[in-house]
């Protein structure tokens, strides 16, 4: 360690430009984010552009898709397209809230356990493993059943509180491999505290990994929220894609042949989650030079 290393430090802007260079040339990433972006815009702008209450009963029940009702109407004459754009909003909201909270908890637990080690690690690791084994949906069922009034935000909160363990485990493993590096030792010698070392030295070195973790948590939150909605523990007010599926199932859309009622919400969930998974593979290729070939 006596010789100065001649490697010129790359300024962050350069790294970012390089990542961007490969990002715009990565088909998987662009396609995945493209699909998510289109649906996100539809969810954000749709309710504004096409005014009207999504749950309002209309005069023409059970009509197939037409120029007037793009996705047809339900047994009660509700406009499926209007429900769909409002539902997209709730779905994205639950993904951001649930995925975000899970990512924050997972990061805190993972970083602290991985960096501090010893007894702190033992305790946090035990906690992580315990929560990892408990079936998430079963816990959420109990909690939501006792909640009188349910909202998208509270649903997201509880999903976040139960979804973090695998992220914490993955981040802990990554932190383990970083904590013995020289730059971390150097920071420690210069008297930086645990929080500062984690925030300034460790987290930036795995920022791409953290981002990908968030994407997977987002997808997981969307899927689990739709299951909860489907069982009948969705938000008590408003619409979500899962609630649309639940209503379709409850009012026998299947037997009545109202395919336009249950196909769009499920297709949208599949598209969002699938596109995120594919984008994640693309991101992996962008950030990991080993996977870049071809």
């Amino acid at each position: 360690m006596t010789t100065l290393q001649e490697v010129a430090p790359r300024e962050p802007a350069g790294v970012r430009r390089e990542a961007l260079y490969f990002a715009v040339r990565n088909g998987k990433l662009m396609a995945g984010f493209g699909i998510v972006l289109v649906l996100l815009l539809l969810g954000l702008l749709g309710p504004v552009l096409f005014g009207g209450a999504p749950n309002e009963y209309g005069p023409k029940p059970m009509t197939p898709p037409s120029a007037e009702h793009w996705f047809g109407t339900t047994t009660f004459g509700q406009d499926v397209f209007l429900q769909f754009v409002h539902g997209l909003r709730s779905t994205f909201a639950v993904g951001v809230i649930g995925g975000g909270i899970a990512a924050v908890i997972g990061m805190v637990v993972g970083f602290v356990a991985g960096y501090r080690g010893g007894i702190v690690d033992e305790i946090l690791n035990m906690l992580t493993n315990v929560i990892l084994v408990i079936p998430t949906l079963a816990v959420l069922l109990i909690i939501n059943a006792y909640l009188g009034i349910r909202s998208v935000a509270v649903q997201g909160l509880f999903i976040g509180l139960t979804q973090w363990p695998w992220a914490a485990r993955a981040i802990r493993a990554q932190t383990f491999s970083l904590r013995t590096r020289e730059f971390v030792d150097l920071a420690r010698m210069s008297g930086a505290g645990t929080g500062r070392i984690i925030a300034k030295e460790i987290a930036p070195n795995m920022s791409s990994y953290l981002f990908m973790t968030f994407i997977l948590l987002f997808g997981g939150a969307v899927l689990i929220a739709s299951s909860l909605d489907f069982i009948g523990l969705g938000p008590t007010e408003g619409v979500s894609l899962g609630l649309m599926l639940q209503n379709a199932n409850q009012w026998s859309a299947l037997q009545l042949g109202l395919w336009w009622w249950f196909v769009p919400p499920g297709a949208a969930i599949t598209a969002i989650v699938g596109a995120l998974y594919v984008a994640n593979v693309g991101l992996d290729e962008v950030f990991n030079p080993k996977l870049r070939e071809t």
Partner: protein
Amino acid sequence: MRRYFGRKLLIYGLTFFVAVTVNWMIPRFMPGDPVASMVARANVTKPEAVEAMRAYYTSLFGLDQPLWQQYLNFWGALLRGDFGVSIWLFPTPVSDVITTAVPYTLALIVPSVLLSWVVGNQFGAYAARRKLLDNTVLPVGYVLTAMPYMWLAVLLAWAFGVILGWFPVAGGYSFSMRPNWSGAFLLDLLHHWTLPFLSLFLVALGGWAIGMRNMIIYELESDYSNYLSALGAPSRLIRRYAFRNAVLPQITGLALQLGVLVAGALVTEIVFAYPGLGSLILKAIQNKDFFLLQGTFLFIVLGVLIANFIIDIVYVVVDPRTRAGMAGAQA
């Protein structure tokens, strides 16, 4: 090996303890007065049912007793196998209601999970590094794994049940039949079982195929694979070694996915009105039957813990490193 099992059992013991504690805490520490609202919302008309409900809630919650006493009582009842009385099917004990539903759920979930795991791994291993197959298996796998379980179930029910009319779309057996062990009834059971099984199988399949494919590629890039191919070993042999190494993380993955798979089974059962735990949960929620809901919750947790332990045993059999006391599987 004793340390490995000791550690696992400690985790499972703790998990069960946490689950029971959560189950005990939620009705007590949620905002509002659960006893009053539950009695009010249950909409029970029979006066003896209302009375029994109130008596049960007060005795179980024991609001006049100190908290620690309530907690101990809860454990005591639990260890005696007393989950309370179902409100929806008053006065059947919750444990009886659950025992009638469990065989259906197990019959659905065990074959679909095991088969999708085996077939998915084979597919993934075969597709890895084979251009044409890889380009088809990968996108299909991503679409399948991104699907909400209930949506595929609805689509299958619509296509094969409503449009083609090949399979029934509701129930565990025909309404005209009574459960018995005759051939006709078993055939009828199988007929009703096919679609729910298929939808669970297909959604889970995608994830395993993708996982295995990535794992195999990783193994084929490792030093031992390169060394073997440098020695001129046939690629089939190298792939066989790669598969044996790649299957280990997939076993761990199976343990991690159990919660998701159970959740998938629950919603699939709801779509097909299949008389298992999922439909039970739906009924419990619709009828505000909290005893039934909480009993089912504990039952699912217990089932997942047992399944986890079985997977741990399998892991020890499959991975010699855990037997030798080396750090093979991380707890």
